[in-house]
């Protein structure tokens, strides 16, 4: 499943520019990291990919179909995990939370149950199905959010700062999940300024600065220039060692 962004610009309601003339193509199955300093436009760009924001100019296409033309289709194909996992919890139990998406698609109840159970098994939360989501740990909450996306059958998953407020174990849980999903052919797009933890898993690194797409290329090539744009270069890259994620 391909995502194509063509000459995308976004102006906020107060008139300030958010994104300026961004063009890129993400092929199905790619693992892409989107980085940049705070306020560089990472979240704004992500929200255009599943139609939560619509372009002031330009276009975003998911599998050849314009996001603006069919919002529901785009949201079903490109699932989004928000920065604050608590803010996106709707269900009163882990099971209800994952079932929320399939229920919004008006699927028959048996199908909702099948998809929910399968998604919970995929993120390792089947045993916690009847727990209240707020009682889960930070890493489990992120996995729950990913489960909610999987239950909708989204081939692409975008994650906005998925490691924020997570301890070492929580980061590892999320990384394991992302690596497993990528291995199964899902498209993964992660917005983060914390490259140390995840860059070793990625196929491609994009750098945004002040709403412009400044760099786009192989992680090991682009990472040497990230400090010019307000992002810390990972330690392994600074000392010339081989790339490692927090999973290694």
């Amino acid at each position, binding site marked *: 499943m391909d995502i194509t962004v063509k000459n995308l610009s976004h102006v906020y309601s107060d008139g300030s520019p958010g994104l300026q003339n961004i063009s890129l193509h993400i092929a199905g199955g790619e693992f892409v990291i989107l980085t940049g300093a705070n306020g560089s436009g990472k979240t704004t760009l992500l929200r255009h990919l599943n139609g939560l924001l619509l372009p002031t100019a330009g276009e975003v296409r998911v599998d050849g179909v314009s996001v603006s033309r069919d919002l529901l289709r785009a949201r079903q194909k490109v699932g989004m995990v928000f920065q604050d996992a608590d803010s996106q919890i709707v*269900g009163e139990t882990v099971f209800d939370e994952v079932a929320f998406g399939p229920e919004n698609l*008006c699927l028959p109840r048996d199908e909702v149950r099948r998809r929910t159970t399968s998604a919970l098994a995929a993120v390792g939360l089947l045993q916690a199905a009847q727990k209240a989501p707020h*009682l889960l740990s930070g890493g489990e909450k992120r996995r729950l959010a990913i489960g909610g996306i999987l239950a909708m059958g989204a081939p692409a998953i975008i994650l906005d700062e998925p490691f924020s407020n997570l301890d070492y174990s929580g980061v590892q849980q999320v990384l394991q999940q992302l690596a497993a999903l990528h291995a199964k052919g899902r498209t993964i797009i992660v917005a983060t300024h914390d490259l140390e933890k995840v860059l070793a898993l990625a196929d491609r690194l994009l750098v945004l600065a002040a709403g412009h797409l400044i760099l786009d290329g192989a992680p090991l090539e682009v990472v040497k220039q990230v400090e010019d744009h307000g992002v810390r270069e990972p330690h392994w890259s600074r000392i010339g060692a081989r790339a490692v994620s927090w999973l290694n």
Partner: protein
Amino acid sequence: MAELTAFGYIPGNCLLHRLDVRVKLAGLLGACTVALQSASPGLLVLGLLLGLLMTIQRLPLKPLLRQLRLFCYLLALVWVARALATPGVPLWSWGLLTISRAGIVEGGLTCSRLVLTLLAGLLFTAATRPAELKTAVHWIFRRVPGIPAERVAVMAGLMIRFFPVILITAEQVRQAQAARCIQHRKNPIYRTTRVALPVLRKTFQMADELALAMESRCYTGRRTDPGLSLQARDRWALTVLAGLLIPLMLI
């Protein structure tokens, strides 16, 4: 966010969890009617019934009381106001203030009604998912002309979903302000506004984020609703409820 909150769903598989939401709603309405209009014997029986249900549901009493302490202050205020305002044989007087025996009894009765109504509400929300409530509201209003049943149902569901979150936010703001010694400010209006404004701001922000998250998961208001079907246990429960509550309403 991990703390238990009053007026929130508590996952479980107890008797009330398994009942059809319409039966629970009928029970809530019945219990509230009894609480608001019955005399003391009716209130006593209702209190015993609600106490039994709370035990069966294993509702943790201490944390609930801790979270409802503001409500306890309100009750105390109501009791004192009724005691002072109801005419009768004076028990104690100081200047213009007189507390009567009838006032104390009347105040106690009013507070009992409020407590029983609150307990019935607690039991209902602890055993009912917002999604079920939404379904029940939709079922009730779907044949009423002029009422957008789907929209009303969604609002009811979200209201229940948000109530505990707002309580948690209020507690966090209160603690943050206590950490900066707000208790040294004696003006209650100053203290109230200093807590209320950040809570309101944060609540609207959370509502905005939740709306965005729901939208991103294809929420449009039309969903697969949990199927409503009255089982044998629901019919039994309805019969028992009617048998208990209707006589109580007449006491």
